[in-house]
């Protein structure tokens, strides 16, 4: 990886929660970098602290120790150059699809008129042309999540954080959205940190997979996925793919974790 072009630097990150029964160590010794235009997946079982990590990256939670830099500027709170896609689409039902996509533009006063055509272009890219003036509740779950991805990209952020964005969808919709996401990413080459508990999803999408184990949340290994794109769903049955998946799963099964 071209380390000189790193966008995200995480160094010695630690997060403790104070609870009634003392402090809980959620994350410890997290170190990683993400290069410009790189797609990095973080995979781990539920409760391994990956959502906590994402909230720290998004500036929604403060770290206890360590530092997170985005384009060499420490993340100390919410920033305008970060896009987030959550597990649920989190759309506003009183806004049309187009207005939902333009929410970051409205919040950050980037100019509706200047960004309208960009929003329409992105909606076309995710296959939602003609749905601009519909309302979220008129769309299927998969379409809603594509609106959320478009919203995450509209303000041209330095990084896109995705927190199990397809976790709530059925398996078939999930596979087709993985294909969609790959296509979108090949178009825009955004820097992506993608959090998931599905090993196959992580390997299918990412350039690099960071493996996270719980108590405390740590990154135990990173695995490069040197499979050329575009990757097809047939890849899921290929031996090279299975080899990487097995290698990742070994980390969890050795700790007695189902993943």
């Amino acid at each position: 990886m071209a380390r000189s072009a790193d966008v995200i630097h995480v160094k010695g990150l630690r997060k403790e929660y104070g609870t009634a029964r003392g402090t809980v160590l959620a994350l410890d010794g997290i170190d990683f970098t993400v290069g410009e235009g790189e797609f990095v997946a973080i995979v781990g079982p539920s409760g391994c602290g990956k959502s906590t990590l994402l909230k720290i990256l998004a500036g929604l939670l403060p770290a206890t120790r360590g530092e997170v830099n985005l384009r060499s500027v420490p993340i100390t709170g919410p920033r305008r150059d970060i896009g987030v896609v959550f597990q649920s689409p989190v759309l506003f039902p009183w806004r049309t699809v187009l207005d939902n996509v333009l929410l970051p533009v409205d919040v950050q006063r980037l100019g509706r008129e200047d960004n309208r055509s960009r929003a329409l272009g992105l909606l076309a890219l995710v296959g939602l042309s003609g749905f601009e003036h519909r309302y979220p509740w008129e769309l299927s779950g998969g379409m809603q999540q594509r609106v959320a991805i478009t919203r995450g990209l509209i303000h041209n952020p330095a990084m896109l954080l995705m927190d199990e964005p397809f976790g709530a969808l059925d398996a078939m919709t999930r596979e087709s959205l993985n294909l969609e996401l790959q296509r979108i990413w090949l178009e825009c080459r955004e820097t992506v940190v993608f959090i998931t508990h599905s090993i196959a999803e992580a390997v299918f999408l990412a350039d690099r997979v960071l493996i996270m184990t719980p108590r405390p949340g740590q990154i135990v290994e990173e695995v490069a996925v040197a499979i050329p794109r575009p990757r097809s769903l047939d890849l899921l049955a290929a031996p090279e793919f299975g080899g990487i998946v097995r290698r990742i799963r070994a980390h969890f099964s050795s700790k007695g974790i189902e993943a």
Partner: protein
Amino acid sequence: MNGVRNASLRVLLLIASLAVWEGAVRALRVPAFILPPPSQVGAALYRGSVSGIYLQHLWITLAETLLGFLLGSVVAFVVGTAIAASPRTEYFLYPYIVMFQSMPKVALAPLVVVWFGLGLTSKVVSAALISFFPLLVNTIAGLRSADEDRVDLMRSLAASELQIFRMLRLPSALPFIMAGLEVAMVFSLVGAIVAEFVGAEAGLGMLIQSRNFSMDVAGEFAILFILAVLGLLLNAALVSVRRRVLFWDPSQKAALNSASLRGGP
């Protein structure tokens, strides 16, 4: 269910119950100052409508109700917003609110009339006092109902608290606020009528009382009928506003069915 058949059954039932009322009152020779037959009520309704006396008093009661509703709602919304926005405000205002809430507000009407006189002002204040609470409570609950994920999304975009309020908390509160407004409207009418009972120069409440003193019970029934229609129309106006504003709210269908069955004080 056959819609047309049910509608005609409804009308038939109404006619039948009026006929039973008329027949029973005549057969049992109930004096008209106890229970007048519907024919007399209809006659009173007609006479007053032709003479214009109802309309003249209706405008006054309507103005009192709407102004009281407006005043009570604006104050309730502002106070509710202040309380929802800051736990500190809630801490200091809470004791007064609890005390005020547990008191029957109609009991304040005589005092309000002493303070604000026999004219319009006392009726507006009385209507505002009574209609204040439903909206206050709903505004607080509504502003606090915003989905946490949506708040996180707004925060992640570096939105200011004011933006979060305007773009998220306020729209999220609208279903609660609209429900509060509907109750407030009914309560306003009650507040205006009660204050008119206590002391007034005009208005349908005053007219009811003066007819009561002269034992014109048929005339009273006529006014009660007008008040019921007025209440229905005011509610229908708010329902149509709500349908327009809350077109996106999935609970609208359920709310439509329950709203018409909500009672007043």
